């Protein structure tokens, strides 16, 4: 369960202050499927980064599963990112020198999980995204859609409760994009909370709930029209 109350985020650029988020209040229940939409510079990515504990709010409160996390020290935020949150990026962010399985093992390596368990869990995660036969391929030997599926396997292998996807189909053709979004929706049906940042009305329209941001404020919040 995500609860934001009066959340703001300022950036200082030169001697100017940019208000990326202004008094955002929001509740995302477990298992929700939320699309974050809005024009460039509206604060979507900033909100996603704060939800993912990569960034901290300037003021306001962020309660995750009943605990205030907005002001936690960096070490504890890293722990939350490791255990509770999975990220999927527009440009995949796979490590080019590692195989698909190696990329999926990465968060488990950082968490100190032993090799035997790592391999078993990576194989299971790759099977869940339909890439068992590509486990030993490097990213440059995979198609765009396959790369994003590896990224989804990596994002979910630690068993997070929240999946944060930043334009997950933005770098894919329509067919691959549809496959990826269907994969994410399947995981949502299995109980994963999903927040997708997208420009694409078709992708956004598939979400259970659409949050439109304009100038750092919530302009609308509701089901797809």
């Amino acid at each position, binding site marked *: 369960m995500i609860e934001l109350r009066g959340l703001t985020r300022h950036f200082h650029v030169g001697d100017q202050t940019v208000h990326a988020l202004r008094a955002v209040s929001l509740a995302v229940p477990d298992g929700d499927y939320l699309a974050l939409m809005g024009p460039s510079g509206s604060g979507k990515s900033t909100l996603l980064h704060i939800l993912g504990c*990569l960034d901290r709010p300037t003021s306001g409160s962020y309660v995750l599963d009943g605990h205030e996390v907005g002001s936690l020290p960096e070490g504890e935020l*890293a722990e939350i990112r*490791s255990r509770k949150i999975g*990220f999927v990026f527009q440009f995949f*962010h796979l*490590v080019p*020198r590692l195989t698909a399985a190696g990329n999926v093992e990465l968060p488990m390596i*950082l968490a100190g999980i032993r090799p035997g368990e790592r391999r078993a869990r990576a194989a299971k995660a790759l099977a869940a995204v339909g890439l068992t036969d590509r486990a030993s391929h490097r990213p440059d030997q995979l198609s765009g859609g396959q790369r994003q599926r590896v990224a989804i396997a990596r994002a979910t292998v630690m068993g997070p409760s929240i999946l944060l996807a930043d334009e997950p189909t933005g770098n894919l053709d329509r067919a691959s994009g549809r496959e990826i979004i269907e994969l994410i929706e399947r995981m949502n049906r299995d109980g994963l909370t999903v927040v997708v940042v997208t420009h694409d009305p078709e992708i956004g329209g598939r979400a259970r709930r659409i949050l439109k941001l304009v100038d750092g404020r919530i302009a609308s919040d509701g089901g797809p029209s």
Partner: protein
Amino acid sequence: MRAIDLTRLALGAVAGHRLRSALTMLGIAIGIASVILLTSIGEGIRLYVLSEFTQFGTNIIAVNPGKSDTTGGNPTAMAGTIRKLTIEDAEALRRIPQVEASMPVAFGNARVEHGERGRSVLIYGVTADVPRVWRFGVRHGRFLPEGDPRHGSPLVVLGIKLKREVFGEDNALGERVRIGGRPFRVIGVMEPKGQFLNLDLDDTAFVPVAEAMSLFNRDDLIEIDVAFRSAAARDQVVADVRRILQDRHQGEEDFTITTQESMLSTLDRIIGVVTKAVGAIGGISLVVGAIGILTMMWISVNESTAEIGLLRALGARRGQVLAFFLLQAALLATAGGALGVFAGIGIARTLKVVLPRLPVNTPLHYVFAALILSFVVGLLSGALPARRAAGLDPVEALRAE
């Protein structure tokens, strides 16, 4: 994160840029190789010099006329007087307890002739104590007989090279030679002893000290060598030698006592300083190698910015990112160091083959020290780039392409 996984990740990152990593390693390798090579030569020279000096034994004191240290007030005419060292002085020192032998020494150059053949060599005037004091062995015949050193007899013991030059393969024992025009009878030939500081100890002849003094027309000694029984007695023997000679020289200390140990420790110290200085010169190339690693790691951090952002998003702490880059630098440097150790030892071995007279020695602890040094160099040169990597804002880092 487990240490072994961190090491594998770092190794993977280093191996990901083969050429770049190899060139960076080469910088450290050259530095370590030059340090190893130069210190090996220094250590080889040290061992060579020490073995040269200890071949005469270590329980030995040399007394020479004249004082090399300046003590007391202004030198007066009286204080400036240097009495000569005499055979009587040497005889007096023989009576010190613990002293095994006290040998008067005089030497000079003279021509040794036999029949048509002749050769100018160094002639030592000594006593029967040479085998004991200098640890010289006799191969054929015997050494000079015991007896009163004040009275010589025309006997000579030849160095083995001199014997071969003058007699060839013929028997020399009992034969007559002329030394400086005077007849001497050969009673022995020495074992080979080799060279000492470029002085060929086999191309020489030993005659009774009184004969040498008369041959070279002098009434004093060049040196008295005192051999004593145990190293523990050294200080007492030195004190006794000083007291007795001062008594005999009207209270003046107009002689210099050199113990083998003081000479060795002085030499050891000098060569040690030279070795360190030379090693430090090699160290300059190591510094250049370290700057190479720093540059490479800085570039690597810049190139890996997006990957650093990803690691942070996947739950990596700042400390883990720091360790990841520090370890890369340390691995590069240690691998380069290992390469340098092999190259250094290889060049040292080759030098030994090409220049057999060049003393080269690489002690094992130098090898370990070099490897530890290169690891530390890696950590130091990786510190700045790793700190930068760990300090990156993950959101900014993820935006990098």
